């Protein structure tokens, strides 16, 4: 069960995540601004470890603290593994935790539908970034037209 219902724990990245690198103080400012705009009390962020590609050590620590709201700097900080993400969603639903993503101005209301929409966004992006080689694709497409 969550204890701190109006408080929002920030969650920021260290180093690169998904091709981005944002100084931590800038991430905190964006999260603080998101919290202000959404009437949430910002609690200083946990910074994810930057060890061996870690993406969820500090996230799990934040999830287990008892905050009702966890505010990520960006949705692209979610772990790469779909299984790990699903465990996080299940834990949030069970414990009534709302995940927020400041850059994308999104939040998960505590149900499966919200998380499935987050998954569609992540998978669409992975498809675009990893699967489509635009340069060759467009060159080949033009040849066929």
């Amino acid at each position, binding site marked *: 069960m969550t204890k701190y219902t109006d408080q929002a724990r920030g969650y920021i990245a260290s180093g690169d995540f998904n091709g981005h690198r944002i100084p931590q103080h800038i991430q905190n400012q964006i999260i603080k601004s998101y919290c202000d705009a959404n009437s949430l009390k910002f609690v200083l962020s946990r910074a994810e470890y930057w060890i061996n590609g870690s993406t969820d050590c500090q996230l799990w620590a934040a999830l287990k603290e008892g905050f009702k709201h966890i505010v990520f700097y960006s949705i692209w900080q979610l772990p790469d593994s779909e299984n790990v993400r699903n465990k996080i969603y299940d834990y949030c639903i069970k414990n009534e935790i709302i995940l927020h993503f400041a850059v994308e101005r999104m939040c998960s209301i505590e149900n499966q539908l919200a998380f499935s929409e987050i998954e569609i966004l992540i998978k669409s*992006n992975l498809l675009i970034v990893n699967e489509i080689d635009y340069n060759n694709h467009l060159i080949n497409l033009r040849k066929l037209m």
Partner: protein
Amino acid sequence: MNSERSWDFRENQELVASHEYIQEGYIIEKADFQYLKLIKQDIERAYFEFVNIVNKETYNLENAHLSISHEKINDLRLFIMQNIYQNTSFHRNYYYSAKNIIHSLCGNELAMQKRPGLSINLPQNQNDILPIHADTWNGVSPFELNIWMPLVNCTESMCLYILKRDDYKRRLKQSKELLRLTSDELYNELCDDLTWIPIEYGQILAFDQSLPHGYSLNKEQYTHWSINCRFKGLHTPYWDKKLGEYFMPITVKNCTRLGMDYHHPENWI
């Protein structure tokens, strides 16, 4: 238009629209009014709420300048945007009001701008001028389609202006230094070639934002209100405006969903 061996299976109506869009850089179509009406209602509701908060007398959108001072216009704009983007019903109505032309020019598996832009140009307000620009000059993908909807009838200087494709090509060819000019210099340089696009409430403008466009000073008696939103094929290239922060996937089809979740059987041979 299509020969028997062509791979271009686009319907005739779509080809006609595409031809006009390529030729002019824009096309005007009728909006689906049942959805457009809902869009306008949402904006009016938020506008009236704002005017009531600042204790002014309320007028219709065209006469908003009688209620709102030049200094308050950006507060009003942000208030309305905050209000209408609380959920996605506004976006849904926007998409459905322009669905036909979006599908014709862009496709049906789409990404949509998360926060459409709202323009309110009061008469004689210098701050409401939108300097001439092409969105692609600032990292916007040329694969995007801008769907622009007036909420009032727009004539003369209330209209969006655009430099048509042929004129743009000609001017670029004449001077490679064109893009080194400041936006004021560029406007003065191109002014005689610009086209102000008259449009009425109930119509939608689909335009190519890779062509220079903007708003000049509104010299008419009425306030300009319009809203603009970008759509693109979900799987077409993104430049600086990314999925998630700027775009949301709105019509992901079933086969794409299945493909995304497909796992090849491991050790199956």
